[in-house]
């Protein structure tokens, strides 16, 4: 990384760390937390779809897995949510390999539709599964006093902020690591020309599976965070197709296949959603999606590399 960029990143990180001390109002902090959460989710998706080219439209599966694992752990007193995070991630990885084995044989549109199908199957199953509370959802019991072990903080939600920031940094770090390693090159080769990659010795199937596993694990970790933050989960909030879509939108808007794209995307979309919701009342919920939709169309036509791509183009033009 060029020196100037490194300084910028460190400065931003420092700023991010300091923010909760300055911004004590819960609402802006909540927005920031959601920005970071979605950025982390989009980043996880980006690893599979942006870098490796496998467009999964059912990623909510893993989010829900992480959320429910944690929820169950706490509700049934099995253990600490942190443990649940690891277990959830583990389950997500196993799930990803199970799904990936057959589904990765498909290409392009077929693959995308298949991921939708799988996502919906899981969604429907969850709605009907009594063990996890079915459609009623699961309430995470409140545990006082605040404790790190219990992953619950009620005095000050600021700690949540730091945790989700940590998740985001983790996601960014993993992406960066992959980007500069042989695996990253293989990811991109598989994305561009699967057959040519195979002819050069790339184990295509295995590369895809690795991408899927990493992506699933990170997504599940975010799910666990969400469960502990919101303390209530139900299939509608963690498994729906609309969530999978939102994750994609954020990544695409920001720039698929780029390191900062997901964060940029989240930083734009989440506040945008909030603004439209505040100023446009009831219909606002839909209007922000209208804008999203229009944005996505424009982006995919004009600059598939997203906002990051736009910035890059501007810089090159100078």
């Amino acid at each position, binding site marked *: 990384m060029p020196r100037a960029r490194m300084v910028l990143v460190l400065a931003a990180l420092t700023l991010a760390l300091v923010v909760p001390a300055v911004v004590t109002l819960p609402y802006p902090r909540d927005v920031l937390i959601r920005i970071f959460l979605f950025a982390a989710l989009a980043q996880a998706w980006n690893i599979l779809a942006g870098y490796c080219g496998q467009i999964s439209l059912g990623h909510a599966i893993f989010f829900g897995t992480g959320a429910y694992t944690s929820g169950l752990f706490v509700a049934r007193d099995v253990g600490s949510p942190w443990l649940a995070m690891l277990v959830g991630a583990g389950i997500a990885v196993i799930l990803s390999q199970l799904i990936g084995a057959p589904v990765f044989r498909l290409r392009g549109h077929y693959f995308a539709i298949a991921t939708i199908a799988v996502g919906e199957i899981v969604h429907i199953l969850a709605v009907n599964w009594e063990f996890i509370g079915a459609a009623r959802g699961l309430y995470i019991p409140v545990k006082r006093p605040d404790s790190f072990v219990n992953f619950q903080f009620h005095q000050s939600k600021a700690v949540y902020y730091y945790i989700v920031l940590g998740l985001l940094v983790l996601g960014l770090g993993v992406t960066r690591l992959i980007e500069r390693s*042989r695996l990253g*090159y293989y990811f*991109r080769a598989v994305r561009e020309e699967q*057959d*040519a*990659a195979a002819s*050069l*010795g790339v184990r295509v199937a295995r590369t895809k599976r690795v991408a899927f596993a990493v992506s699933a694990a990170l997504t599940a970790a975010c799910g666990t965070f969400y469960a502990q933050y919101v303390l209530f989960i139900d299939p509608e909030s963690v498994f729906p197709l609309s969530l999978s879509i939102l994750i994609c939108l954020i990544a695409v808007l920001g720039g698929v296949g780029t390191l900062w794209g997901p964060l940029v995307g989240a930083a734009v979309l989440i506040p945008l959603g909030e603004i439209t919701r505040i100023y446009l009342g009831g219909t606002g919920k839909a209007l922000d999606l209208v804008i999203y939709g229009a944005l996505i169309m424009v982006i995919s036509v004009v600059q598939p590399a997203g906002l990051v791509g736009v910035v890059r183009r501007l810089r090159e033009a100078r």
Partner: protein
Amino acid sequence: MTLLHVEGLTKRFGGLVANREISFSVAPGELVGVIGPNGAGKSTLFDLITGFQRPDAGAVRLDGADITRERPDEISRRGVARTFQKLRPFAGMTVLENVMVGAFQKTADVRAARETAQRALDAVGLGDRAGAHARGLSTGQRKRLELARALATRPRLLLLDEVTGGVDQATIPGLVRLVRELHAGGLALVVIEHNMRVIMEISQRIVALQLGQVIADASPADIVRDRRVIDAYLGESWRT
């Protein structure tokens, strides 16, 4: 000791027999040309050898080992590289990065891969275009890129599918020279070509295909006199 031995390869696509009982061998360091009219099954043959298609019958042996049912990446790691007729550069990556993907087969270290890639690019004459986006290359440059990419995997056998196809006349001698240099360096090659002059110039042996079958397997001098080859492909008016 043969390097590559292809025996009785047969491949059907529905009612069409693309390859029928094809057999021939390639010795280490040998350059074998493959000629034949369009639709003779040449590219299919490459696909069968490199694992992109499974033959309905027959076998492919490399150094005696049966590689008939192996995957393309496994075959590549055994030292067999190929280029494609329909060029497939990694469009979103730079020229250097393209070749690095090949280089990574032999090393996991990014710096080492970069060096190998740069050397391969220099060898094919694209050294100064290393930082360019693969998308913006001309056809001739793309052919060289594919070649460099394949070479970066340090193969023992290289299958070239139409090196001079779609390339302007001025670039051909350079490409031919390149192929000869590679051959001189000890690399075994099987080259599909339509340009007879080129094939005659570089091949030690030529295999002629028609309608999926081998109709001749001989030295260049004998091939051009072979009746069946003349009828099927060369035409009467062809002169050495």
